[in-house]
C-alpha cells in the first residue's frame, strides 16, 4: 500500500509499504530517519518514542497503516519544533527541514541540555528520552522531580542511572520557558 503522512512538518510518501510494518520501520528504513531507535519492539523501553498527532507513542507498536494521513514528529524534528514554538503560533513557523525531514536548525534546548548535563552515555535511549522530555516541557514549563520521573517512566536507560537525565530536564526547564514551553493548544492530553 501507499502511505502518505507528515513527518517533521513535511509531507512524506512511501510506496509498497507492507501493512505489518511498524511506523518505526517506515521511519528508519524507508524514510532514512534512523533517530528513533529499535530496541525491544514491545512497547517496553520507549527508545522508539515519537509524537503522533502530538501525542507520545511507541512507534514500534503503531502499524504503518495507522499513520496514514497523520502528523509525526521524530527526534530529527525536535529543533524545528522548538523553533516553531519559540516563533509563536503565527509568525515564521516554516518548519524548515531537509530532504528527508532532517533538521537544519541548531539543536533544540532539550538536546543542548542533555549534552551540557552529560545525560548521554551509549545514546540508545536518548532520542526517545528527548522526545518525551520535550513533550513534558511543552505542557509543563517547570516540572517537579516527580513530574519528570513520571513523564520519563516509559523510557528505560541502562547506562546513566537516570540522575544526569533528570538533571538535563531540570536544566532545560531552568534555562527558561521561552524556547521550550509551547502553547496550550499543542499540549497532548486534556479533554
Amino acid at each position, binding site marked *: 500500500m501507499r502511505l502518505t503522512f507528515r513527518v517533521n512538518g513535511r509531507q512524506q510518501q512511501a510506496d509498497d509499504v507492507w501493512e505489518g510494518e511498524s511506523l518505526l520501520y517506515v521511519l528508519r528504513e524507508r524514510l532514512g530517519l534512523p533517530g528513533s531507535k529499535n530496541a525491544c519492539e514491545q512497547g517496553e523501553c520507549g527508545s522508539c518514542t515519537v509524537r503522533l498527532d502530538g501525542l507520545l507513542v511507541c512507534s514500534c507498536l503503531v502499524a504503518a497503516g495507522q499513520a496514514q494521513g497523520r502528523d509525526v514528529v521524530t527526534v530529527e524534528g525536535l529543533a524545528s519544533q522548538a523553533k516553531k514554538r519559540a516563533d509563536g503560533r503565527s509568525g515564521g513557523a516554516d518548519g524548515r527541514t531537509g530532504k528527508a525531514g532532517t533538521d537544519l536548525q541548531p539543536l533544540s534546548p532539550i538536546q543542548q541540555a542533555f549534552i551540557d548535563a552529560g545525560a548521554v552515555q551509549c545514546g540508545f535511549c536518548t532520542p526517545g528520552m528527548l522526545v518525551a522530555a520535550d513533550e513534558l516541557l511543552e505542557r509543563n514549563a517547570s516540572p517537579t522531580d516527580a513530574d519528570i520521573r513520571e513523564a520519563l517512566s516509559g523510557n528505560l536507560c541502562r547506562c546513566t542511572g537516570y540522575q544526569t537525565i533528570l538533571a538535563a530536564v531540570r536544566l532545560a526547564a531552568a534555562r527558561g520557558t521561552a524556547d521550550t514551553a509551547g502553547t496550550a493548544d499543542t499540549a497532548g*492530553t486534556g479533554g
Partner: protein
Amino acid sequence: MKTFRYERPADPAAAVTLVAGTPGARYLAGGTNLVDLMKLGVETPELLVDVSRLPFGEVEETDTGGLRIGAAVRGSRLAAHLLVRERYPALSQALLSGASAQLRNAATIGGNLLQRTRCLYFQDVSKPCNKRRPGSGCPAREGAHRDLAVLGASEHCIATNTSDLAVALAALDATVHLTGPAGVRSLPLTDLYRLPGDEPERDTVLRHGELITSVELPPPPHSARSRAPLMVYRKVRDRASYAFALVSVAAVLDVRDAAVHEVRLAFGGLAARPWRAREAEQALQGRPATEEAFVEAVRTELSACRPLRENGYKLALAERLAVAVLADLAGQG
C-alpha cells in the same frame, strides 16, 4: 510476522461485516497489545480491521447523570477528562497507574478491556499453553506463576486479567455496549469476562465479530456529607511506576452514622477477571464501618483463594490492601 490484510472501514456496520465474515479477522484499535502479540507470533490474524477512527471517540454525560465513554477513546484522554477526575477519580487513578504515557496515548478503552494475559508461557510460542493452544497443557502451574491467579482458576489455566481499567469499572458498576452480526446488546462489565473452566482460550463472552462500542457508568455515588465521591483505586506492583499489578483494589464506600451505607469492592491481579467482592460487600452492608468488620468481610471473600507454590503472598497482600483502602475511605467520610 504472518502476512495479513488491513482495512479501515468508514462505519461500524462495515467493520462488523468485515470481521464477522472472516474467521481469522481481528479488530485493531491502538495496537499496543495486538501488534505486540502478532510480532511474538501469538496472534496470527489474516485480516485487521482498524476501528480506532470509528465514531466512538466521545465522552458524554448521559441523561441520568452517568457517563458514556466511546470504545475508541484513548486512555490518556479519559484519565485527564474533567468529568472523570471530578466524579470518578478511581477511574482516572486506574488508567494512570497502567503502562506508560506513550502506551496510554495509543491504547483505547475497548482494547484495554480486551488485552490478553501477560502469562509468560502464553507469550512464548515455543511453550505449551492451553489458552494459546487448547489441550497443550499449562506449564505455569508447575513453573512461573508468581503473578498468576489465586481465585477462580481451573486446572487448565491460572492466568490473570491485567487490565487496571477493568477493575475500576467493575467497582463502578459499568455496562459494556456491543454491536455485532446479530445486533446490539449490553452486558454488565463483570459479565464480559469468563473464568477459564475447561475453555481457557475464551477470555470473554464476546462472539466473533462483536465490537465494543462504548462503556457506560451510572451516576457516581456521593456521600451524605461531601460532594466528592468516596472512591479509590490502589495498585501494588514491583516498582513504583510502569508495571502490572501484583494486586490492586478499587473501592467505593459511603459511611453514614458510622455504619456502611454503600460499599463496592473489586480486586485486580487475583483472577482471570476483575474480581467483584460481592460476599465482602454483603457482609459489610449496614455494619459498623470498623477495621475489624473490614478484615472479617475481606477474609470471607478471600477464603475461596487457592494459592500455588509462589503466589500465596497475594492473599495477605489483597487482604491488607483492601482493609487499608476501606479504612482510609471510612476516615475521609
